[in-house]
């Protein structure tokens, strides 16, 4: 927009030549439609991607991998159970399946998810194993033995919703828009949050310049153990450090222990022929020479003598040394044979990296770099847990078998199958408990992790979705380092740049961007073979001298060989991947600083699809996109055709990626599919976010999750603890492409309000909003809360049980007031109004529940009704009676409240601009424009200058244009409807281009002095409502122990006059007020104090002096009396010495 146009808004715009130019088809050499076309074309790949992948695909993929692949691996690793007693006996697991038997092709019937939610059950499927074992002399094969039940992730391939049509879903009360990816355990929906960790089995080099320390560390992680090995400098000499070796071992000694005995070869392996490295490293030889250690055996014995592992079986020092080198150090490379070369090379490479960092301090790794991070998903966590439980299951099973086999003469042959079912509950309950509590305790790794799972937030559709894409960091929140919290350039396109909470978790909790994929583990062996076929020379035959002359090839951090022509190798490999011969998620990149080619097949890497560019031309052409739109091609076909490929962060760094097609030039290798995919699902709701100040977008990301709206198509069938629903939700006038992709337009949370940006009364200061009373009457901001109450009718061992009684009636046969909402069955009737003090479940419990069965007496019942207590009445919406998993009757009552906005309710636009309702004004008093349109909301213009939310202004203009035009406009990030076009529409309809209107005062009818920025903005109603917060108390309950008023609104508590307020009162000198607030209105208590002994007595009698003569009555706080008595119990006698303050 030209400044001239803004400066003279009163001029008719047609005279403005600068603006005129904008409207011409060619503006400054650029066609108005140029960029939009390409953007619109490519964009279609995104819905195609989401169609295949979905928003929570990472969770589903990882769970599917767990149940289909990982389970089988676990079974294989723990397949044999042998008996200590009978050497003949064995039991072998052959196969494992979840959810279906080997005999039937169809899946087992499992209780549908919604029924599990309602009945407080776990959505799970049986786990079957095939076993082979000996019974006497015979070998028996047994199929489909159930060893427990596995909680099933919704929408995974074991879920009944997998592949279900919208109609099927409706039949079982499921919402087709629900993303899945969570579990239902005991009726609650639980999400296993994605965990971010430093990558395993990779060398990380760090330097501490203050302490002059360089260290290379590697966290080895295998199925059995986790350990960390360091190569560290100390006084410029290099040592190897490991937890199970008592002290640091000189690195040369370690290499000698690995069989590299000659100093020449050590030098070659570590330094190659680089003389500066040789100078740095040479010192290390002296130390070992001084120790007089020359041979491998001497070195091994030295290490063996330092090992501090406790073993059951005694080993010689030499054997200890061999064991330490072969298995303990760098545990993920376990040596099974005589040759330690692989390990020697790994240690040498670590040392080389340390030497390189000593030589050039820039050669260190960045811990916070996204390429060095791995994400741990539900599947991996479940797999760790399952293996632990399965091992325990097998141990118990084995103990049981041994116990039976130990008996010398058994009557019959022992069938191991009989004892397998005894322990099957362990696995199911172990999995259930871990998911429902979030405590992941793994005995193997001695790991205890709390807070792994969270209850899925159903506040709004977007909050549930946001939870599924959330990534939590293992990093401690309390530590004051900025690095892990900072925005990393490498997170572009992988992690959302806006969506992070404020406060202590800022930057530690992240969200996935829209178009990402998280890899699952892939087989290493075929890739290794492929490398050799592509010309990699195996590390076992390469001599030490020529190792560093060529590029080394690393597979998942482990060196596998060397290659003379790395660029050619990498391009061959990429071609194979593009043609689908190699999995598309395997990444390969060259690191020229380390002279290395890295190949990664491990799971947990974030990657994203990009269009491949060849010689400055995008491989995806308009023709392909047409085929895509016609449904002839799918996203996966683009991968197969080699038009699109997945890149992880490391490989991204090896590529040139163009943002737009116009940026293409010969050296470019990839083209972005859509730039707005840098944002995640939640930040994608914001229209024109690229015009906003960045923290505003972050604020909106937090607030979008609190907005009340539609939750799911099955929202009226759900009985959740607390549910907020908007009565008339609308889709936003100004959409984004993300909104359409994530179906926010089908389950919106907000309404399009006509906003006038002006001052009105004094009730709009500090972001307060002025609401139009008639708009509220029409339904603006109206919402519904639904609260659940669960009662269980228990059964007791003596055959008595809780019961629900009928209603009590008065003389005229009418039910008494408390029982008004009840029906004849003693449960609240649907539709009845319940007021505070009324009963909606008339439950009674037997008084003799603890009696034994033998002394049968007539059951006596005591009424324990469920009483409604709240400031506002509710209506009974649903009553459900069912039977839970443990056969107890379960009653759920859903109470509904309908709320219209009131003073103090919180609203927000989509630009991080929140405000509370300051005043509700009658329709006739509000300003109106030429057409008679009256605003729904008046917002104070002071909200704009400091917040700089220009996006909100553009939203208003686009929205207004959309209203006039009858179209929905787009505010997509880095794109969307152009402001110029929107202004043109406004102009065409006879409005001002800038969105300003002439308004007339509703009170005086006069024209307002200024033009008012006036148009629709999408407003969200947030869950913070005055009704849930307002609280006052004159008198009420007191705590039992201290007799002080209770705390908190839910307990009808008092409002505390705290320490600082007390200080004010003291400073003011209002001593009587102080006395009244702190004692008389709180916990005043009359005590009898003996003036002789100073202790407290009672009823005018001092127990210690045995007399009543000196006893004086006085008032002290009950808490003080409690303190004295507690001190007495500790053998401290506080004695009160009383004096008269006022002389009589």
């Amino acid at each position, binding site marked *: 927009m030209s400044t001239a146009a803004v400066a003279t808004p009163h001029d008719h715009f047609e005279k403005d030549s600068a603006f005129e130019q904008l409207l011409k088809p060619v503006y400054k050499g650029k066609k108005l439609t140029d960029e939009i076309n390409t953007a619109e074309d490519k964009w279609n790949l995104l819905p195609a991607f989401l169609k295949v992948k979905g928003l929570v695909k990472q969770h589903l993929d990882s769970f599917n991998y767990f149940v289909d692949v990982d389970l089988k691996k676990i079974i294989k690793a723990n397949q044999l159970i042998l008996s200590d007693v009978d050497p003949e006996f064995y039991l072998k697991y052959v196969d494992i399946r979840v959810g279906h038997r080997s005999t039937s092709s169809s899946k087992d019937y499992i209780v549908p998810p919604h029924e599990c939610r309602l009945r407080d059950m776990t959505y799970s499927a049986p786990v079957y194993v095939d076993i082979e074992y000996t019974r006497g002399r015979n070998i028996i094969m047994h199929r489909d033995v159930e060893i427990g039940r596995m909680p099933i992730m919704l929408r995974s391939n074991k879920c009944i919703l997998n592949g279900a049509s919208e109609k099927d879903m409706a039949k079982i009360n499921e919402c087709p828009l629900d993303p899945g990816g969570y579990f239902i355990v005991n009726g609650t929906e639980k999400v296993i949050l994605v965990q971010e960790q430093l990558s395993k089995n990779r060398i990380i080099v760090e330097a501490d310049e203050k302490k002059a320390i360089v260290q290379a560390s590697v966290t080895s992680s295998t199925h059995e153990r986790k350990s960390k090995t360091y190569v560290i400098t100390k006084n410029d000499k290099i040592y190897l450090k490991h937890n199970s070796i008592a002290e640091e071992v000189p690195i040369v000694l370690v290499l000698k222990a690995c069989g590299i005995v000659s100093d020449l070869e050590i030098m070659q392996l570590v330094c190659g022929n680089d003389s500066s490295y040789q100078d740095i490293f040479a010192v290390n030889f002296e130390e070992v020479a001084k120790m007089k250690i020359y041979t491998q055996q001497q070195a091994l014995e030295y290490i063996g003598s330092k090992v501090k592992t406790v073993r059951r079986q005694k080993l010689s020092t030499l054997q200890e040394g061999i064991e330490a080198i072969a298995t303990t150090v760098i545990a993920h490379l376990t040596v099974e044979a005589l040759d330690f070369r692989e390990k020697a090379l790994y240690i040498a490479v670590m040392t080389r990296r340390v030497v390189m960092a000593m030589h050039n301090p820039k050669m260190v790794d960045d811990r916070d770099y996204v390429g060095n991070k791995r994400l741990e998903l539900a599947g991996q966590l479940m797999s760790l847990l399952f293996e632990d439980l399965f091992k325990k299951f097998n141990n118990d099973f084995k103990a049981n078998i041994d116990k039976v086999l130990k008996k010398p003469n058994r009557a019959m042959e022992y069938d191991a199958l009989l004892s397998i079912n005894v322990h099957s509950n362990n696995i199911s309950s172990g999995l259930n408990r871990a998911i429902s509590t979030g405590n992941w305790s793994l005995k193997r790794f001695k790991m205890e992790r709390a807070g792994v799972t969270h209850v899925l937030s159903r506040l709004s559709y977007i909050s549930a979705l946001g939870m599924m894409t959330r990534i939590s960091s293992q990093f401690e929140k309390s530590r004051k380092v900025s690095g892990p919290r900072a925005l990393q350039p490498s997170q572009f396109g992988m992690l959302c740049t806006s969506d992070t909470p404020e406060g202590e978790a800022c930057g530690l909790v992240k969200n996935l961007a829209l178009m990402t994929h998280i890899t699952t583990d892939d087989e290493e062996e075929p890739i290794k073979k492929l490398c050799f076929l592509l010309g990699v020379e*195996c590390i076992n035959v390469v001599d030490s001298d020529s190792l560093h002359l060529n590029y080394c090839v690393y597979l998942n951090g482990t060196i596998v060989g060397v290659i003379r022509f*790395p660029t050619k190798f990498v391009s061959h490999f990429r071609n194979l991947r593009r043609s689908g011969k190699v999995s598309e998620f395997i990444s390969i990149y060259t690191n020229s600083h380390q002279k290395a080619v890295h190949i990664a097949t491990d799971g947990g890497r974030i990657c994203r699809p990009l269009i491949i560019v060849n010689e400055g031309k995008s491989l995806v052409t308009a023709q392909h996109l047409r085929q895509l739109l016609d449904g002839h091609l799918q996203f996966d076909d683009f991968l197969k055709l080699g038009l699109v490929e997945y890149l992880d962060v490391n490989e991204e760094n090896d590529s040139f990626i163009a943002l737009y097609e116009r940026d293409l030039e010969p050296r470019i290798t990839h083209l972005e599919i859509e730039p707005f995919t840098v944002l995640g699902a939640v930040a994608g709701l914001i229209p024109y976010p690229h015009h906003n100040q960045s923290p505003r977008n972050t604020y909106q990301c937090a607030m979008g999750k609190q907005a009340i709206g539609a939750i799911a198509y099955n929202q009226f069938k759900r009985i959740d603890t607390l549910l907020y629903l908007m009565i008339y939700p609308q889709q936003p006038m100004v959409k984004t492409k993300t909104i359409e992709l994530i179906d926010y337009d089908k389950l919106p949370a907000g309404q399009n309000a006509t906003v006038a940006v002006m001052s009105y009364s004094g009730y709009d200061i500090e972001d307060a909003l002025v609401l139009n009373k008639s708009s509220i009457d029409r339904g603006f901001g109206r919402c519904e809360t639904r609260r659940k109450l669960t009662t269980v009718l228990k059964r007791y061992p003596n055959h008595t049980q809780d019961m629900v009684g009928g209603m009590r009636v008065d003389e005229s046969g009418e039910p008494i007031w408390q029982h008004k909402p009840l029906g004849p069955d003693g449960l609240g009737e649907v539709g009845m109004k319940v007021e505070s003090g009324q009963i909606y479940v008339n439950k009674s419990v037997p008084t003799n529940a603890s009696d034994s069965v033998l002394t049968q007496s007539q059951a006596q019942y005591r009424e324990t009704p469920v009483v409604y207590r709240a400031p506002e009445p509710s209506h009974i919406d649903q009553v459900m009676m069912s039977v839970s998993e443990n056969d107890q009757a379960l009653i759920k009552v859903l109470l509904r409240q309908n709320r219209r906005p009131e003073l103090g309710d919180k609203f927000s636009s989509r630009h991080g601009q929140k405000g509370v309702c300051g005043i509700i004004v009658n329709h006739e008093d509000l300003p109106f424009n030429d057409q008679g349109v009256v605003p729904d909301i008046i917002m104070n213009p002071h909200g704009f200058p400091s917040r700089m939310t220009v996006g909100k202004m553009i939203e208003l203009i686009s929205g207004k244009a959309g209203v006039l035009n009858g179209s929905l406009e787009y505010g997509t990030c880095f794109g969307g409807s152009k402001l110029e076009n929107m202004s043109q529409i406004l102009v065409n309809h006879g409005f001002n281009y800038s969105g300003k209107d002439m308004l007339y005062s509703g009170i005086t009818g006069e024209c307002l002095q200024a033009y008012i920025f006036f148009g629709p903005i999408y407003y969200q109603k947030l869950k913070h409502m005055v009704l849930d917060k307002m609280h006052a108390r004159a008198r009420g309950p007191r705590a039992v122990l201290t007799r002080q008023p209770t705390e908190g609104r839910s307990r009808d508590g008092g409002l505390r006059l705290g320490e600082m307020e007390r200080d004010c009162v003291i400073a003011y000198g209002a001593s009587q007020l102080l006395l009244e607030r702190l004692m008389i209105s709180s916990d005043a208590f009359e005590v009898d104090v003996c003036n002789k002994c100073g202790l407290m007595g009672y009823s005018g009698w001092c127990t210690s002096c045995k007399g009543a003569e000196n006893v004086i009555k006085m008032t002290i706080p009950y808490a003080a009396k409690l303190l004295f008595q507690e001190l007495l119990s500790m053998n401290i006698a506080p004695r009160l010495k009383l004096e008269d303050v006022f002389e009589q």
Partner: protein
Amino acid sequence: MSEQIENQLFVTEDSGDVVMEDANLQESEEGDPIVREIPINLTNGPFPLHILQYPNKPKKNGNDPVLHPPVSQVRYKSKSSLWELDVPVNTEIFYDKNRAEDEWDSVAQQTLKGVGVQTEGQYVGMVVDEEVYLLPVQAVAQMRPFFKYIDTVAQSKRENEARGAQPSNPAARRAQVVTMSVKSSSEANQPRLGGALLAHKVADEEPPQDLEWIEGTFNQFRESVITEDSRTMMLPLGDENDYLSKAM
């Protein structure tokens, strides 16, 4: 592998591979015309081939009989694929005679030890009469010095110390409380060695085979390799359609 096998059975590691000048310098796919066609024969030698690499020996030593004296004794453990070569040391130069006599039992030979690592897809090539002959390699061993004499001396010293220490402690000698426990003979309580320890145990217990080192047999070997019978005919496992269906 290298074609420069001269009159020696064991191929030295040829460390003088073409040193890469510039990793990025590469011929383009188009500018790679066929210059010459050479027939390739896949043959089998009369015996399995092992490559012994000498990582500590510079290539320029070549076959100088002084710097690279012929091997005097060869021991091989077939189960563990463990090679041990004894090479006589020139005791005239760079040899501390006194120390050798005092400390190391006048050792006069260098022992080289190496573990053969099984390989797959490694071949030795030979050019005879404009034809290339490829022989599969069974294992590659890197021969590194093995200071057996130092370890033996250290071992015996320790044993002496252990023997000497015992009688010097009379208290330990007098008070002898003998506790006996009966160990159950079941297999489970036997110490089970796994992985590398087991491999070492197997290697230690295996008796070495003494082999004879013969030099100058290359011509004879070459003749036996290029015969018609030793060649292996490569037959396709599937037919053309099969291949095409897989390739598509």
